[in-house]
């Protein structure tokens, strides 16, 4: 580049006021959108999101029947569905059932899992049943559970517990097995009372596994609740989606699905946060990002 007599770069050519404002605001927004790699990432993600919604809207408008859900229509009905007391009742029913079932499965599953992990008798006696029932798709059991528990909320609860229990047992068992033997040796050497061995060593060091199992269990429990509601026609989010989809009110029905997804995501994020906040020493492959 050419320089002037004392070695300075030639100054920019003088601009008009309006042009300068445009350039400056352009630079400002470019900085917000692309200024750092993190910002660029977010921009890409948001842009893709809009692209997906756009393609959805146009594609459905061109090729699908009129009742099929479109993003703009969903956004239109979204507030009214959220304010609808029927929907609130349904959401509350499902969530309450899922949480109750998860609580039962968590306590029972932890006890059984730790027993299986630490005492070989229980492992040998129950391994066959736990593995078999874990693999059994809970949906296949649904007809049986409705006959046993009637067409009522009990059937849903039983399905949720059944779906959640075994994944917790299996994970807690693996956790209890992987307690470092040195810790237990130290306990023995110092004649630590049993409650320390069980609660402070075994339970505590299997906690990360417990959380992993709990995450898995929560997903399965949500699916179980929805299937049970479909099958038994119970009031809940699943039924809300089903009845709206059947009466061709797809936009309303999608709101129900969104509620389910939000619940799943929220749960996942909370568990992630808990793991990072309270168990920073615990890193399982694939969970680090």
């Amino acid at each position, binding site marked *: 580049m050419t320089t002037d007599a004392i070695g300075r770069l030639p100054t920019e050519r003088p601009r008009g006021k309006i042009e300068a404002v445009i350039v400056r605001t352009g630079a400002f927004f470019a900085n917000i959108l692309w200024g750092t790699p993190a910002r660029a*990432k977010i921009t*890409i*993600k948001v*842009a*893709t*999101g809009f692209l*997906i919604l756009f393609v959805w809207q146009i594609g459905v408008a061109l090729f*699908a*029947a009129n*009742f099929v*859900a479109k993003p703009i229509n969903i956004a239109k009905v979204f507030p009214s569905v959220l304010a609808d007391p029927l929907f609130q009742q349904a959401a509350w029913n499902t969530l309450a059932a899922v949480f109750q079932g998860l609580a039962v499965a968590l306590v029972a599953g932890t006890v059984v899992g730790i027993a299986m992990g630490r005492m*070989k*008798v229980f492992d*040998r*006696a*129950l*391994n*066959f*049943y736990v593995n*078999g029932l874990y*693999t*059994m*798709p*809970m*949906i*296949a*059991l*649904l*007809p*049986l559970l*409705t*006959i*046993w528990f009637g067409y009522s909320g009990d059937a849903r609860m039983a399905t949720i517990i059944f779906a959640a229990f075994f994944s917790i047992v299996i994970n807690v068992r693996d956790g209890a097995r992987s307690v470092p033997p040195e810790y237990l040796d130290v306990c023995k050497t110092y004649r630590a009372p049993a409650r320390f061995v069980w609660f402070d060593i075994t339970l505590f060091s299997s906690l990360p596994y417990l959380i992993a199992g709990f995450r898995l269990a929560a*997903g399965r429990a*949500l*699916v179980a609740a*929805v*299937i049970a509601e*479909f*099958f038994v026609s119970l009031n809940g*989010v*699943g039924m809300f*989606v*089903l009845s709206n*989809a*059947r009466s*061709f009110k*797809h936009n309303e*029905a999608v709101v*129900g*699905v969104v509620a*389910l*997804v939000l619940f*799943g*995501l929220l749960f*996942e994020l909370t568990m992630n946060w808990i793991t990072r906040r309270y168990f920073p020493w615990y890193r*399982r*492959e*694939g969970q680090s*990002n």
Partner: protein
Amino acid sequence: MTKILALINSDRWAVRWGTIVLSLLAGGLLWESAGWSSNQAIMAPLIGGGDHPGTIPRLYKYLVHDEEYRLSLLQSVGLFTTGFSLALVAAIPLGIVMARFVTLRIALESYILVLYVTPMIALIPFIMSIFGFDFWPKVLVVYLFAFFPILYNTLEGARSVKPEMLEVAKSFRSSEIAIWRDILIPYTLPYALTGVRQAAGRALVGMVAAEFLLSTSGLGEELITASRNFDMAGVLATILVITCLGITFMRTAQAFEQKYAAWRGVNR
């Protein structure tokens, strides 16, 4: 007390197998007695006899003498295989492509995560009213259940491909084909196989759900018919068949995973 504990927890051959056999016997006995002592519309015994038809004889009858039942079984397996292989063929290449094109990965990964946690079961009503009750809507259900676990895990693998590797490959002027063959595919495949195992379980749920909620067919139909007739032996026998199917699919996927993913060194 401690002696007894030490004995029942010991690794002796007799103790180990004794415990297993005893527990199986106890479970069978419990099932049998529950079947005999309750109404036959509520529970069927394991072996049974007389006016309490048993589960095992029914299973034998279904699989050996019942032509229609075997057809149902084949129908279900066909549904599962079609949906699952379509998901496999679509998800794994997409995941590997995302390992190469980082921008594409960044753009899509959040949305894939969202779809991964979406309970696909909630989409069945939409599929029902948009696509109807044919064979292919059911395949779509199985496909949706299987696709996202595979894609999500393959994506996890794509994220684990070290950029240094690609840089080294680039500085040695490695050809594009070699990059794919020697870096991308070996790196992502183990993760993809973890996803395949996960997907096998989910797709089985999808299969039964599709057969329940869309046009009933296959094992789902057998299950529903039996439960509507309060034929508990039939219900339990079909549940056993579905579970065995599940175990077969999962074991196959697991065997693949262990064969090709052993070097990853983690057992998830």
